[in-house]
Structure formats: structure tokens, C-alpha cells
């Protein structure tokens, strides 16, 4: 079973987009909400094409980290770089922050995100959800946008649901539309925030297989998930987070089967022995 043409086409698009720089570079990032410290000094580098899985108990800061990378939350200290360009600078002056925001339009397009709650636009059909971004952000004409949207959705196996509204789709279908919507903007990095946690168990598989194909096509991915099977089979690296810090960082086989840190062992035991 070789790669499909589409996957090969995707992969050629994704080679060396950052010119050698790391896809994501996080240095000394701290984030607090009022008194509560949620991220306590995170240092992380993700290479181009790498698939990183983040595991850990709830409240460990995994989602917050993803949201900071996606620029949904401002950081309090440290730096976030996407492909070598500064995306957030905790120590920057107000003026410098405005500058970064203004110049980061292109950066925002390089990072795509898929959410646990799908967050599809309920008043638009599946096709419109995907095409709108193509038209408004990538400035394709309405016809081109629609054609691309249809193509993307068909590739995800949603060809029969193009004109349905999110309310008429199953959770798995909605999440696949959400992934298509994010991919339509041709991001170089994709963030997945527990995207299968809100799904019925039977629907989880269809979403995970889309993510697996994406990983095989060379996409740089940062995935927060509880699906250990996915981590074992698809991830290049697994990171365990707890209480706002990175506790352990290793390959799937070593971290998942022979964790060195006590906290990791504890967490994995609880997750696996359910």
C-alpha cells in the first residue's frame, strides 16, 4: 500500500518550508492566570515534519501551551518562535508586541488548530465552513474556494455531506470537517487539542486515521491526546507534562513502555489500567 498521489503531493509541499529552522521553538515560556501559574518554564523544540504527542493529567497545561502557540493566549514570559520567526515575546514592550502582532498575519496562517469542541460555524454548511477561509484569508475567488473545499472534503470521505450543516453531522464527521477547514489554509504546523475526547468511541477511529495520514504526509504536528495507541504508532516523540512543566521527553517506545520518571509511571498506570 503505497502513498496516494495526494499524500505525495502534500509531502512535496511540506519539505523544508522553514529553511532549516525549527518548526516550533519554545523557550522559557511562563503563563499565569491572575495568581495561578499554568505554565512554569517550558522549553520545547519541534522539528519540521515531527509528530509530537503531549500527554498528562488535566490541568497540566497541555491545552494552554497549544493555545499560546496558536496565539490565542498571550504569554507572560519567554519566547515562541514559529519557523525561526518570533511569534510571541513575553519580555517585549507594548510597542514591540504591536509590531509582532502586525507582522504575524503570515505566521498565524502557518499554524492550524483543531479543537476538542470542533468549533465549526453552525450557520454554514460543511462546504461553506471550509470555503470561507479560502476566500477570506487566502483570497481565492469564491468559485476556486468552493472547488478546493469540495476536493478537500471529498478526500476526507465527506463527499456526501458537503451541503449539510454541522448540526446534521456526527461528531466524527464534524471533526473531519474541522480538520479540513484548518488544512485548507495550508498551514505548516497543525495543533490538535484532544480532538477525539468529545467523540463517541466508534467515531474516534475515523478521525485518528485522518490524523495518521496527515502525519505520513510530513505535516509537523503537536497533538494533545489520551489515545495511547495513536501515540505509540504515529508519534515521533512523546512528552509528559504535569503541573505546568515538562516531566519527561522521549520516543514512544521508551517513554510509554519504560518511563523513567515516577510521575509518568503513575500517570500511565492509571490510564492503561482502566
Amino acid at each position, binding site marked *: 500500500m503505497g502513498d496516494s498521489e495526494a499524500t505525495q503531493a502534500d509531502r512535496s509541499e511540506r519539505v523544508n518550508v522553514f529553511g532549516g529552522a525549527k518548526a516550533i521553538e519554545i523557550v522559557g515560556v511562563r503563563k499565569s492566570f491572575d495568581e495561578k501559574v499554568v505554565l512554569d518554564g517550558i522549553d520545547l523544540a519541534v522539528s519540521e515534519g515531527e509528530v509530537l504527542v503531549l500527554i498528562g493529567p488535566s490541568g497540566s497545561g497541555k491545552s494552554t501551551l497549544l*493555545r499560546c502557540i*496558536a*496565539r*490565542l493566549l498571550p504569554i507572560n514570559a519567554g519566547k515562541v518562535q514559529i519557523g525561526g520567526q518570533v511569534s510571541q515575546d513575553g519580555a517585549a514592550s507594548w510597542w514591540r508586541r504591536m509590531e509582532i502582532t502586525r507582522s504575524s*498575519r503570515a505566521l*498565524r*496562517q502557518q*499554524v*492550524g*488548530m483543531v*479543537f476538542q*469542541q470542533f*468549533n*465549526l*460555524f*453552525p*450557520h454554514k454548511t460543511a462546504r461553506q465552513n471550509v470555503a*470561507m*477561509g479560502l476566500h*477570506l*484569508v487566502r483570497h481565492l475567488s469564491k468559485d476556486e474556494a468552493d472547488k478546493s473545499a469540495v476536493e478537500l472534503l471529498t478526500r476526507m470521505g465527506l463527499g456526501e455531506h458537503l451541503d449539510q*450543516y454541522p*448540526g446534521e453531522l456526527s461528531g466524527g464527521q464534524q471533526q473531519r470537517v*474541522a480538520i479540513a*477547514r*484548518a488544512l485548507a*489554509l495550508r498551514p505548516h504546523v497543525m495543533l490538535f487539542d484532544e480532538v477525539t475526547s468529545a467523540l463517541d468511541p466508534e467515531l474516534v477511529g475515523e478521525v485518528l486515521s485522518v490524523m495518521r495520514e496527515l502525519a505520513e504526509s510530513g505535516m509537523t504536528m503537536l497533538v494533545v491526546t489520551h489515545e495511547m495507541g495513536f501515540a505509540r504508532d504515529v508519534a515521533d516523540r512523546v512528552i509528559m507534562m504535569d503541573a505546568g512543566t515538562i516531566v519527561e521527553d522521549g520516543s514512544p517506545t521508551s517513554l510509554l513502555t519504560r518511563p523513567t520518571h515516577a510521575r509518568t509511571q503513575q500517570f500511565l498506570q492509571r490510564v492503561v489500567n482502566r
Partner: protein
Amino acid sequence: MNILASNAYRWNWDAVFNHDVAHLALVGLKYTVMVTALSFLIGSALGLLAAGLRLTHKPPFTQIAYIYVDFFRTTPALVQLIWVFYVLPVLFGVTFSPFMSGVVALSLNAGAFFAEVFRGGIETIPQGQWDAANVLGYTRRSTIVRIILPQGLRQALPATASIFIGLLKDSSLCSVIAVHELTYQTQTLAAQTFRPLELYTALAVAYFLLTYPLSLTSSWLERRFRVL
């Protein structure tokens, strides 16, 4: 024993169904509809503005909007109406015709209610919608115009219909400042023909006939947009 035989009132509907009444009724209808429609349009624009100010969460704007909304929601429309007609000219030297005063007062009144309805509609939209649009790279304006408002306004539809019906009824208050709408015409006619029972019954039916299609339209609109 002398029973109150005077309960045998002789209804005379000729007082209602004649040409003079028809003519005055038409004039009254014109003014009622104009006052209601204008107040609805101006009020909804005001309401949207006030809701927008509230939603910025920034000091001077939030307070201004809050004071406006609170004041016009908690004082009676009749009082506002009389105030605009009698007091405003004294304070600012601007004289409004009765019709203008009616529209100004009712617009301000409706605007306050609209503000709360729109604000509510928008605030119930999940943060996830903003997040998704943000990450997709939508501009703030695109997000508000294409994602938030369409959903927020749909949520606000039933309450908006209520405000419209309320406005239609409040237009009758303008009779006290001599706007020639339906209630004023009825008062004039009743004084002339001494047939208040028939005339006011007809007036009540007229108002019902005006508001009922509105509630039907509102239900139809809700059903049509029930995707959400």
C-alpha cells in the same frame, strides 16, 4: 326589586362602520405604523451600538452604554415620551413636532431593550467560535460580521419580535401628545359620537390584527433559522 336593568346597553356598530370613521382610521393607521416602524429601525441601530459599546469592556464606553440602557429600561415609556416633548425643548431649545417626539422617545426606549437583547444574543455565543475564527486568520471585522452577528442576531430573534410588538402597543401612548395615531383618533371619535364601547372594542381588535401577523412571522422566522 329594582335590578340594574340598565345593563341592557344597546350596541350600535354603525358608529364604527361608516365612512368618516374609515377615513380617520386610515390616518390613524398610517401614523401608528410610521411611529412603530421608525422607532423599530432607529431603536435597533441604537441598540446595536449600545450593545457593541458594552461588549468592548472598556471603561468609558461600557459605563455610557450601561447608564443609557438602565435609564430607559427602568422609566415608563409614557414618562419618557412626555419628557421628550415638553422638557427637551426647554433644555436644548430644540422643538420637536409631536410625531418627532414620539419617534425620538420610543426609539430611545426600544434601543435600551434592543441593547440588552443583542448583548445577550452575542454573549451566549461560545468562545470557541472566536477562537476558531482567530486561528483561521479571520480579521476581527470578518469574525464579527460573518460569524458572530449572524448567530447572535438569530438568537435574539424571538426577543426582537417581542420588542416590536411592545413598540406597536406603546405607539398608543403617543396619543397623549396629540400624534394622530389610532388611539388618538379613537378618543376624538368617542368624544364626538358618545359611543366609546364600540369604538374602543374596535380599537382593541385593530391592535390585535396588527400584532398577530407579527408573532406569526416571528415564529416562521424562528423555524426557518432553526439550524442553530
